[in-house]
């Protein structure tokens, strides 16, 4: 960690962001196996509320968007709109093989082969469907990613490192530094 140059309030805000990640699930044409596994995380056996993770209905209230399924053509416009509605700082988790490359539905005529085709993705989860504990592990990796981003002020440093095109959505300058 670099010498802590951030003010007291930003450090508090960053601590709070890591302690209460709110999640919303978007089914972009999945076989709903991933969806019931995400809901299984909220249930007593895996109970993610002990980490402060709450499932929120409206994208306005969410920090992390979990996208399940290979994005079908019809859902990609909705997925794009939902992603734009989320306030910064927002993160996207693509679920399972479908989220990565369309999985078993790769190259079908009504599918867009993975979430990366429509919105920039931060964390991928392996598995078809991934087990609930893998999903929780994905949220934790997402939180670590968020911690590093917050320390370096925004997502740009990751784009420069991996050389990918910067996210063309509303850039993260809106974050109160």
């Amino acid at each position, binding site marked *: 960690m670099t010498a802590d140059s951030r003010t007291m309030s930003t450090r508090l805000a960053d601590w709070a962001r890591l302690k209460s990640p709110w999640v919303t699930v978007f089914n972009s*044409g999945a076989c709903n*196996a991933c969806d019931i596994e995400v809901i299984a995380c909220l*249930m007593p056996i895996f109970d993610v509320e002990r980490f402060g993770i709450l499932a929120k209905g409206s994208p306005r209230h969410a920090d992390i968007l979990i996208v399940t399924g290979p994005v079908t053509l019809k859902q990609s416009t909705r997925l794009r709109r*939902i992603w734009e*509605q989320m306030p910064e700082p927002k993160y996207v988790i693509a679920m399972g093989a479908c989220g990565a490359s369309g999985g078993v539905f790769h190259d*079908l*005529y009504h599918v867009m082969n993975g979430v990366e085709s429509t919105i920039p993705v931060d964390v991928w989860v392996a598995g078809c469907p991934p087990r609930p504990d893998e999903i929780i592990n994905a949220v934790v990796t997402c939180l670590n990613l968020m911690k590093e981003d917050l320390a370096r002020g925004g997502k740009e440093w990751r784009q420069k490192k991996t050389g990918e095109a910067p996210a063309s959505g509303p850039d993260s300058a809106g974050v109160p530094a």
Partner: protein
Amino acid sequence: MPEVHIPIGPQHPALKEPVNFKVVVDGEKIVSLDLDISYNHRGIEKAAEKRDFIKVVPLLARVCGICSHSHTTTFVKGIEEAMKIEIPERAQYIRTIIAELERMHSHLLWLGVAAHEIGFNTLFMWTWRDRETIQDMLEEMTGNRVVYGINEVGGVRRDLTPSQIQAAFNHLLKLEDRFSKYGEMVKSDQNLQIRFRGVGKFTREEALKYGTVGPTARASGVDYDIRRDEPYLAYAEVPWKVITDTHGDVWGRTLVRLGEMHESLKIVRYCLENLPAGPISVPVPKTAPPSEILSRYEAPRGELVHFIRTNNTDKVERLDIRTPTMANWTSVAVSLVNQNIADIPVIVAAIDPCLSCTSRITVLNGRGGKAGVMTWDDLRKRGCGKNNKGRSVS
């Protein structure tokens, strides 16, 4: 209040899957309604024509996550009928066990989601917690919690070891008293009854006229169940009975599903007790002779039909999947008219829609069965499109 158009979905907390209702309401009452279900269409049938019999089974296991065993069993049963081969008795029993376990966990999942629709989260948590025991059983037997690839043309991939069977018996004991506990709880709970009784009600004639299937139809007294009408797998030898009810509303469907859970448990216990010895699969020729099969199966949500046509090659010439939820959508649209908005999630959840299977239909609006459908563009022009720059709630 003037005519108000409310788009509910495709991203909506009540719906675990993308369905879109364009509801025209007057106050709280629904005037007319249009469902658009085609968000999950992936083109599976076209892909099935390019895959041979071994590769197509994993694809069909992923048509729908909750009823994945139903799709693979229907397809595999059809192909075996086309090839005119008899699979060993033990494989039939193992398939029946997994099918009934899937029915149990699907009904428990439905009971939880229905309770969540009316905000009764405690039952949601408890039912899903007990569903984990069934998941453990399935994982021990087939290796995966949700999409279990146990089916292949000519039999079953994994055998049941005595230790698995013994573990299954202990799980079943625990599940039995949980099911009876939920039975009493649902029957005695005032809250569920207020919200479920008399909602989305239709008579036996209406159920038949609008082509409902599965627990939705059996709740209105329609006595159709493919496991008894066209016995397949091991259902002919197992003593069980079809649960029907006369309420015809969401409350009746709850009772039918609770009864079916008990029946499934009895079937699984019976199959585990007298599991015949012998091989679990049979060598199978690569190609299927030309034939036309209508393979019917009783999925947790209703009658699932695969229409398979083979033409002497190792691939299917045509596979037409008709899923149970597709048949139930007409009845939902008709029964939703002049109910309240608060009942939409309850009535829709009552048929336990599995949209990943359906992904096929838009339905007529409610006025007397005529189809007056508003597409997304009409809505965009009229309703939510104009009030903000592309940031409207979809």
